[in-house]
């Protein structure tokens, strides 16, 4: 286990930061520009995972396992969330026969 940590520590922390920020931004922008709900959900996952990456990196640098527990929780919750999300998507497909997220805009003003 220990050598994993060291392996992680090879790369300076800032690089992890930048990378995860990049991933996060990619996800965010993707969620903004794409209208297909499935892709949007994927983008959200990407954002979450960027956070996971960051957490792992930190835990390595702090040599504290807490963050990795957190990562597991995040994965778990993300799974649950996506389940719900997809089920909602299914409903949506049934009702509107489309997966374009702006098709649903009856509620406004």
């Amino acid at each position, binding site marked *: 286990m220990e050598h994993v940590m060291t392996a992680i520590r090879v790369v300076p922390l800032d690089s992890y930061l930048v990378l995860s920020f990049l991933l996060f931004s990619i996800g965010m922008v993707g969620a*903004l520009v794409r209208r297909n709900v499935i892709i949007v959900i994927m983008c959200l996952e990407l954002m979450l995972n960027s956070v996971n990456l960051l957490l792992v990196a930190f835990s390595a640098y702090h040599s504290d396992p807490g963050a990795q527990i957190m990562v597991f929780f995040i994965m778990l919750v993300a799974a649950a969330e996506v389940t719900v999300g997809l089920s909602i998507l299914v409903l949506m497909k049934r009702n509107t026969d489309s997966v374009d997220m702006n098709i649903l805009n009856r509620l406004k003003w």
Partner: protein
Amino acid sequence: MVKLDLLAILVPALPLLGVFITGFGRRKLSAYAAGGIATAMVALSFIASLILFLGHDGQTHIVHLFSWIHVGAMDIPFAFQIDALSLWMMLVVTGIGTLIHLYSIGYMHDDPRVATFFAQLNLFSFSMLLLVMGANFLVTFIGWEGVGMCSYLLIGFWYTTPAFNYAGRKAFVMNRIGDVGMLLAMALMFYQFGTLNYVDVMQQGGLMASGNPLIVTATLLLFLGATGKSAQLPLLTWLPDAMAGPTPVSALIHAATMVTAGVFLVVRSSVLYELAPYTQDIVLWVGVATALFGATVGLFQNDIKKVLAYSTVSQLGYMFAALGTGDYGNGMFHVTTHAFFKALLFLAAGSVIHALGGEQDIRKMGGLKGVTKTTYVTFLIATLAICGIPPLSGFFSKDGILASTFAANPVAYAVLVFAAMLTAFYMFRLLFLTFFGTYRGTAHPHESPKVMTVPLVVLAILSAIGGLLNIPHIFGGHSWLNTFLASAADGIGMHPLELSAGTEWTLMAISTALVLLTIWYAWSLFCKKTTLDGEPADMPFLKRLIAKRWMLDELYAWLFEKPFGWISKHFFSIGEEKIAVPLTAGTGKATLGFGEWLRKVQTGNSSFYLFAMMVGVVVLLILTYFSA
């Protein structure tokens, strides 16, 4: 003293009682009952005043009833002051009042609201008595406003005629303008002296240096009040219109008593005026100017009452001229004699109007001396009196005034003499056109009933012999009235005339001669042949101007009434409806509009929401960056 207190309270209380009786019983009482009661009340209060007068010991008595307004350092009692001045005014008011009440019984007996009329007439007597008896300015002010209100009510007594109501309002409002001065003067004096009791104010004021600006201001403001009440320039246009009221009202309120309240007020505070020579000059010249104004306008009036009204204005001018010269004694004397003959003139005129069934235009009269004998004779006496023909009362009072004016300022004297000539002219014009020549009207003239003629006779006698009250030294008398009034709280009117007897004789001779000359001229114009004025339209300019009362009413209408109405309308239509209300309502509307606009942001598109959230995040993030 109890007796004095009781009487002093009775004097005003009786007319008030009359008000209640005639007022509450106005439906049940017959015309004569109401008139009788009202008259009785005033008569009784006359008797009470007479007893007080006879028992007067030359001292000043304060009858303290109760503390009226008491705040902090201000304690204004409800009290009467019994001294020579107030006693004299009480006598005049109740005396003349009684006669006029009596006369009214006959004059008003067939009016449906006669009881109300008498109630208001009694109320007037009550207020007038408060005015003259008040021991401090504020109690006087009660009466001051009270008489104003009564005059408003009585002028508009026949309320179905809009013109009369207008006249009433005009009178009241103009008086109110004067009252502004009075109120401010009182505020000033209270601020200065910490009291409003005449005795204390005069006592403290007397210690101040002559020409003290405070005194000048106070006296000027008081005089403003006086001009309002006594119809002096510039606040005189209400008096002629006030003739809309029943003739007895004109006689009592607008000739004999109320209009002299201004004179009374000035005499009351003569001590202050003595210390304000500046104000005295103003009083003198306002008086002179008014005398001239009234006299000129009187020349070409065709309404019998209007003529008398303007002559009243002019006579009041004489009184103020006297006060201006500091000759308070003769001022009061003229108040008295004027009360006699002017009341008489009005009542006689009323009798004529009554005889002609309401006709007031002298062009439709004439030749009445055969029909209405008593009226004619009494009217003649009064006319001679007002023109100052010796030895009638008017001669003495007017001559006294002329003399002291000459002493003070020859120019003023000249103007007043001229005014006296004009007076003689228009009075005789009136007399001739009314009683001489041939009847030009359509009605069937008849002499008035006894109840009306008796007062005429009494007044005629008074106007004839009234002069005896104050015969000057030059005639071997010793100015009894002056001496008597001098015993009042604050030695009034004691100005030994510094004129040689010779000068006095000359003055008398001059004025009398001129007057007689004028009378002859009037005779030649209106008695030998009857010349009638047409409408103002076809007169030469100056004459038209005079006939139209120097356009004073038009001037005021143009200067004040119209602009005021305009402002009032537009303050509302612009200030309120265009600015104030729209502003509030507008604020609300604007907010709602903002809401309407802002809700559009909630487009309903999820991607926009995401975008908006991200923008929010980024912006705030940048802020955090810079503020961290």
